[in-house]
């Protein structure tokens, strides 16, 4: 054997190794994060360089720019925005210091339009602004944020937006000596084009993830253009109830000068920039005009923000915000008790161990405050109706009736919530209180399955049915969120109940990112999930049949029902409250009958905080917390 052939073979071996490593990198990342989560490795906390200063504040007093905004609102006819009534932070507080909080899983990315889960919008509240913000006392009102005026002279078809002047973009995190630095590090001000770019993103069919799921809310938007650098005109082809909430809730300025450019500062091809946007080099960083600058994201460890000294609006309460990724829920409480977190929400297991059946002082410390926050999120089990197993509504109802929601609610979730029967939050007038959830009744479930043609012909204990000439046993896999032990408990209970009605189910715990991927690819039988509901319900995104085939949309279960389509479309055209409620109730009844999901429950979240935190204000909005409102009552000891 020659020497060169040996070398060649060795080289081949290393290439093979390199290939294996390359393929594994993603998985290894996940595994590493898992290990980090368990070990609780944590980064250095950067303390504020300056001592916190007391900032006197009184609730009623408005800031000068707020007064100015309020005065300007009367200029235009058909003004939609309402005057400011209060500041974000009203309690007496000290400014500065580091807020340390936790998040239970890793975020997907920090590009607002590429991140489908609610945490993406939550981070954006730190580093970006919207056109307007929801009223804190009255969530039906919108107050000026980046838009100082939003007027519609013709009552809902044409909108004119005037943008605030002098709002500065954050500097992107690119090295000063990199080839693109000259382009990216210029001083830039917020202009109309930045808002138009957000609309371009939503309208661009090449872009997936959140942009794709928002697309149907903007179907009626036919044209949008900049009149000058700070004025925008939008034209809708139809007056729909979803137009305004979508415009104000989902549109945030995006820098075209960043997302349409590659790392070297060269502009992408006009025809394909959307594809580049999906995998954009800046997606793991965040950029905006908001009160906090994005500082860094270490996957599996921390997301860090720091105060923006050039912020146009109300000064941020903290110098730094550290959001630790703690996948191990035990670590939340452990770190909270060690005063390494300023506040944390409690998962059922922790609630049971620390709070349930006990009395204050909580966790043995008089400085711990406990509060319970209602949420708009509701939980469900989704059934993939594109698969023959779940095509029959009687089967789906049987699956619901075999699911002991009340028992799980009380025992696994410690009664922190309520079982629901339809797709709306209980607080919403859309929820028809007259519709009671299907009872937990195994006998009825058996009868329904038999009626639907599923019988145990070979008496092996599992029901079967002939579908397309083939005998199919009723066996399926339930995809569950693997990082939470509640789901494993739920699955193990549900499994035994299903077995007793003759259905074999296998739980499949997966990572959050895997779950999202498989949902989008429709690669599941059933999965456990939750939706963060909006205050104004819009049914198109999840339930309309047109969404069933659109890739990246949220009708993961391929639900197709002409009545549902009619109601969803009707709701977009119904401005009258009683008419809306009627449609909602009709929809509620329809979904109760069809059971495309097994509706589970809506949860209340217990939150513990240390005494140096001001009371955690709660607002019914999606996402549920606007954390910019949190502040320190006193300097942390």
């Amino acid at each position: 054997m020659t020497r060169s052939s040996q070398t060649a073979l060795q080289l081949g071996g290393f290439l093979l190794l390199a290939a294996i490593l390359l393929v594994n990198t993603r998985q290894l990342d996940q595994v590493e994060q898992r290990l980090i989560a368990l070990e609780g490795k944590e980064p250095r906390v950067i303390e504020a360089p300056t001592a916190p200063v007391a900032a006197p504040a009184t609730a009623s007093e408005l800031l000068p720019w707020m007064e100015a905004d309020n005065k300007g609102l009367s200029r235009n006819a058909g003004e939609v925005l309402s005057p400011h009534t209060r500041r974000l932070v009203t309690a007496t507080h000290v400014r500065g210091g580091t807020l340390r909080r936790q998040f239970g899983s890793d975020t997907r990315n920090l590009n607002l339009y590429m991140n489908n889960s609610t945490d993406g919008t939550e981070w954006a509240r730190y580093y970006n602004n919207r056109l307007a913000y929801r009223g804190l006392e009255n969530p039906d009102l919108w107050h000026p944020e980046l838009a100082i005026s939003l007027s519609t002279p013709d009552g809902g078809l044409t909108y004119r937006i005037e943008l605030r002047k002098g709002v500065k973009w954050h500097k992107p995190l690119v090295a000063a000596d990199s080839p693109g630095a000259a382009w990216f590090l210029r001083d830039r001000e917020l202009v109309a084009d930045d808002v138009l770019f957000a609309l371009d993103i939503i309208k661009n069919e090449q872009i997936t993830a959140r942009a794709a799921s928002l697309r149907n809310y903007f179907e009626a938007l036919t044209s949008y253009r900049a009149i000058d650098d700070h004025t925008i005109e939008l034209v809708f082809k139809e007056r729909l109830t979803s137009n305004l909430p979508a415009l104000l809730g989902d549109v945030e300025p995006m820098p075209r000068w960043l997302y349409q450019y590659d790392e070297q500062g060269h502009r992408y091809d006009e025809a394909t920039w959307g594809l580049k946007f999906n995998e954009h080099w800046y997606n793991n960083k965040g950029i905006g005009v908001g009160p906090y600058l994005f500082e860094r994201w270490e996957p599996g460890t921390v997301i860090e923000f720091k105060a923006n000294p050039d912020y146009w609006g109300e000064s941020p309460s903290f110098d730094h915000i550290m959001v630790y990724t703690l996948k191990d829920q035990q670590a939340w409480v452990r770190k909270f008790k060690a005063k390494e977190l300023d506040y944390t929400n409690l998962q059922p297991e922790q609630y049971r161990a620390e709070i349930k059946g006990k009395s204050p002082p909580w966790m043995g410390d008089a400085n711990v405050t406990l509060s319970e926050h209602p949420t708009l999120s509701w939980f469900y089990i989704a059934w993939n109706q594109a698969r023959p197993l779940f095509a029959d509504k009687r089967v789906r109802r049987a699956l619901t009736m075999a699911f002991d929601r009340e028992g799980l609610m009380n025992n696994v979730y410690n009664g922190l919530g309520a079982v629901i029967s339809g797709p709306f939050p209980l607080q919403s007038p859309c929820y028809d209180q007259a519709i009671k959830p299907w009872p937990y009744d195994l006998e009825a479930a058996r009868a329904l399955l038999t009626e639907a043609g599923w019988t145990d012909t070979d008496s092996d204990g599992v029901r079967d049915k002939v579908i397309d000439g083939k005998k199919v046993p009723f066996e399926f896999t339930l995809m569950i969120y693997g990082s939470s032990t509640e789901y494993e408990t739920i699955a193990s209970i549900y499994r035994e109940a299903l077995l007793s009605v003759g259905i074999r189910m296998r739980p499949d715990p997966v990572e959050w990112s895997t779950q999202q991927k498989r949902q989008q690819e429709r690669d599941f039988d059933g999965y456990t999930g939750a939706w963060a509901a909006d205050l104004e319900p819009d049914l198109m995104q999840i339930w309309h049949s047109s969404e069933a085939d659109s890739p990246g949309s949220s009708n993961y279960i391929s639900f197709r029902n002409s009545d549902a389509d009619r109601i969803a479309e009707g709701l977009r055209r119904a401005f009258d409250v009683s008419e809306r409620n009627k449609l909602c109730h009709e929809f509620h009844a329809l979904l109760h009958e069809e059971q495309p999901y097994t509706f589970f429950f809506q949860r209340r979240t217990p939150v513990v905080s240390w005494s140096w935190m001001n009371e955690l204000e709660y607002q019914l909005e999606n996402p549920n917390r606007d954390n910019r409102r949190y502040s320190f009552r006193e300097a942390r000891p």
Partner: protein
Amino acid sequence: MTEPKPPEDPTWLDIVVGQFFRRSLSVSAALGVLVLWGLAILAPVMASNKPFVWRVGDGPLQFPWFKSLFDQIFFENGVDLFFNTLLVALVVVGPAVFLLWRRSASLPRRPRTLRRGWIAGAAVGIWLVFLGGVMAFPYQAPKEVYPLLEKSVRATGQEVLAIYPPIPHSFRDGDIGRALQPSSSDHWLGTDSSGRDVLTRLLFGTRVSLTVGVFAVALYVTLGVIIGALAGYFGGWVDLVIQRVIEVVICVPSLFLVLSVASFLTERSIFHILFIIAAVSWTGPARLVRAEFLRLRELDFVAAARAAGFSQPVIIFQEILPNALGPVLVSATFGVASAILVESTMSFLGLGDATLPSWGQILNNGRSSGVWTMILAPGSAIFVTVSLLNLVGEGVRDALDPKLRK
């Protein structure tokens, strides 16, 4: 007048076994492992919520426990069927095997080895046919939860005769209303977050651990020995290619490789886990066997075998291999312990089979709910098992070492 029987020369195996028995610590560890196997095989005898005998009033005698033993819906993991058939096979065929084995003791060596080989082969054959038959004909056992049924029947005033195993709980059926109970006379180790009896799950977890240990090792030792034998015997190109592949496999940290392979798979079952462990561990025995072959193939008996015209497979597997197995035997014994640890690690990280009552899974449940009994019990079970196996491994290693003969 008969000639006195000449004393037999001790074989290599006799020497090794004799040496092993002189090491009391290892012998007691081996006994401990036997006890573990006993626990695994007898798990349903000790814990089940199906009564052995059941009679309501003057009704017919029923035997729900026996019926449930081969219910593939309830015992859905192959592991349990394996052990349950083993249990029945032991009871039915065991005594006969024992008697025949004893009777063969008086035979001279060659026919005795042959006879015993036949006996063992037949016993395993009978069991495998039995296992195959059970798996080929699924049926379902009564699904009643007997303790509850008993209560409701008694409430109607009827007499009930029910004889339960000592621990009248099932490792699957939980009562969500009785989740996370502390230790009590009913649940000695309390219940887990789904309301299932922890002691029962621990018992059935023994099955999982032992299966993983033994089968993963059997799998990778077989694989490694064949590959290593080929590499060592042929050398040259074959050796070079195999060595490079081995290098590629061993330079990835094995836990990471195991975890990353596991996260590729959806719906992991215990058999996936066996294969994953085998896939990363075969390099050890392969390298040992290769080294032995490199030494042995130069010896005279191999040259003699070649000269006698034996075929290559015969030379490799019948002539050289038996002489090369010593080091592999030692590494295999230690391998069982490490395979058990790997499985526990995977289950603990939630990458195991989600439906198995494995020790790692119980440990994880205990950690997340902060219940001490659920951390200590499976933790000690893992500790004891791994320690026992390592002690046995040390005994085997010393017994094989001619320099350490006592």
